[in-house]
């Protein structure tokens, strides 16, 4: 079984459009949506939820106001400024480390579990899908990404599928790292803009930091052909294969508004190019 993560560094480059298109092209895949805080994949794939699992992320401190004497020792010990002057826990700032509970002379503080979201296993028209929803303003997205990936691997075993196709989150931090660790290949989707190039360099840096082979796709390459050439040169210099280039086209937006993948929506030029992109990636995965 192989794992492929589609990443972009910056949001809005067309990651989900491309990952959803791959889902409709891959014959034997499990889909994993690891953009757990603002996932969009489900809007196209319309998963039918088979099972839902609660996700408890980091714990959170809770003060028993009856026992608390307001001494402030906990507030001074907290490294995250999560306790206010009137000794209340700011649940958004609390990281659930337990230091406040330990230092409280009255034993007024305990750590409680908080339901931070849920993970789901579903069925879609393209096969099984693992996805999740992190509660609003929750931490621990990295942990939830790890749960989704584990669920996807189990689904792949259960249904005998040979690929886990992961739609990654934007960024280069905690949840992104969790979505690429140990995968066989990442596809970085970029745009030929000054900021796109900058973001691509950072995201490829993260991939190489964790020793993961990468390929690049330039989306909307014709918005700025000069910058597209800069990206191609950069890839050549760093020994990174270009998986393909896609032109600026309104097919993805039109397909999205119809709640379809681009492959389902049209078999025009754009979809042919996406198919070509997919063939190159498959070769690399099988090679």
């Amino acid at each position, binding site marked *: 079984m192989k794992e492929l993560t589609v990443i972009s560094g910056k949001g809005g480059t067309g990651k989900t459009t491309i990952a959803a298109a791959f889902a409709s092209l891959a014959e034997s895949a499990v889909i994993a949506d690891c953009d757990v805080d603002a996932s969009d994949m489900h*809007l196209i794939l319309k998963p039918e939820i088979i099972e839902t699992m609660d996700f408890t992320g980091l714990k959170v401190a809770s003060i028993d106001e009856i026992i608390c004497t307001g001494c402030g020792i906990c507030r001074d010990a907290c*490294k995250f400024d999560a306790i206010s002057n009137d000794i209340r826990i700011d649940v958004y700032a609390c990281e659930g480390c337990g230091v406040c509970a330990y230092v409280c002379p009255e034993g007024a503080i305990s750590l409680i579990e908080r339901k931070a979201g849920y993970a789901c296993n579903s069925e879609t028209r393209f096969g099984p899908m693992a996805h999740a929803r992190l509660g609003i303003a929750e931490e621990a997205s990295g942990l939830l990404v790890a749960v989704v990936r584990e669920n996807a691997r189990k689904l792949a075993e259960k249904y005998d599928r040979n690929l886990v196709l992961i739609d990654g989150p934007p960024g*280069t931090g905690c949840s992104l790292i969790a979505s690429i660790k140990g995968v066989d290949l990442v596809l970085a989707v970029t745009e030929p803009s000054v900021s796109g190039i900058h973001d691509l360099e950072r995201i490829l840096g993260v991939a190489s930091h964790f020793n993961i082979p990468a390929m690049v796709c330039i989306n909307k390459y014709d918005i700025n052909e000069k910058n597209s050439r800069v990206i191609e040169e950069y890839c050549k210099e760093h020994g990174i294969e270009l998986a393909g280039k896609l032109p600026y086209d309104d097919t993805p937006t039109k397909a999205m*508004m119809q709640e379809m993948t681009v492959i389902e929506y049209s078999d025009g030029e754009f979809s042919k190019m996406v198919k070509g992109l997919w063939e190159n990636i498959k070769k690399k995965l099988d090679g």
Partner: protein
Amino acid sequence: MASGKGGTGKTTVAVNFALSIEDVQLFDCDVEEPDCHLFLGLDLEKIEDVNILVPIVDRTKCDFCGKCSGFCQFNAIAVLPEDILVFPALCHGCGGCALVCPKAAIVYKNRSIGIIEKAKEKAKGENLEFYSGALNIGEALVSAVIKVLKKYADESKTVIFDAPPGTTCPVITSVRGSDYCILVAEPTLFGFHDLLLTIDVIKKLGIPFGIIINRSDIGDDRVEKYCETEGIPVLMKIRHDREIARLYSEGIPFVSRMPEWREKFVQLLDKIRVQLASEEAGNLKEAGT
């Protein structure tokens, strides 16, 4: 400036807005992928390392009792019968392990997880101060960098924070404490879905907000209809314009080539002030004063 979905134009709006108004500070809080500086053409200099404290174990004192790993909520310390391992990347720097160690075998040292940078000078002819944070490659603690970055905000100026995409902790850290939040949205299926999530966050934080619809002619009218129904102000609409896209790809703020937009951004600030004043008045009325 926030948005659930990435790529909706937060940075474009933040930079062009900042360039159009007076006496302003701009902060790039998207420390995972900081990009604002590319549009400002400013040289940055490092002004601070963002450090977190990580434990160092003195093996001559440690007797492998396991109290520290038992306490650590983040699995950053593992104790074996005759060895102890620290995983710095998992450590949140809470200080708990040293607190519970009966042998005082744990001390802390600083570990740099990112940097804070400042523009060497104000943008040419502009009264704009610029700060940005950057998370080191391979690091995970995003919010820690944002928290340090925000300390440079000057209350006497108009301060614009360009937030990262999404709805999780880095976004909360960026947005908290603001007087107002502008949400940049696209009128598409994904754009609308992610906008609803972000509105949920901003409402939870109790911050007044309004919407800017970017590429307002690419999808349909679902965002606008929703705002109308919910009484959410649509502050501005920016049509999908290939010229704006091209300027963006070159790293050029469009107000520098399309001066008519400067006035629109000045009016945007006025709109926000009016909305805040009327909400304030409403709140006072509610409080019966």
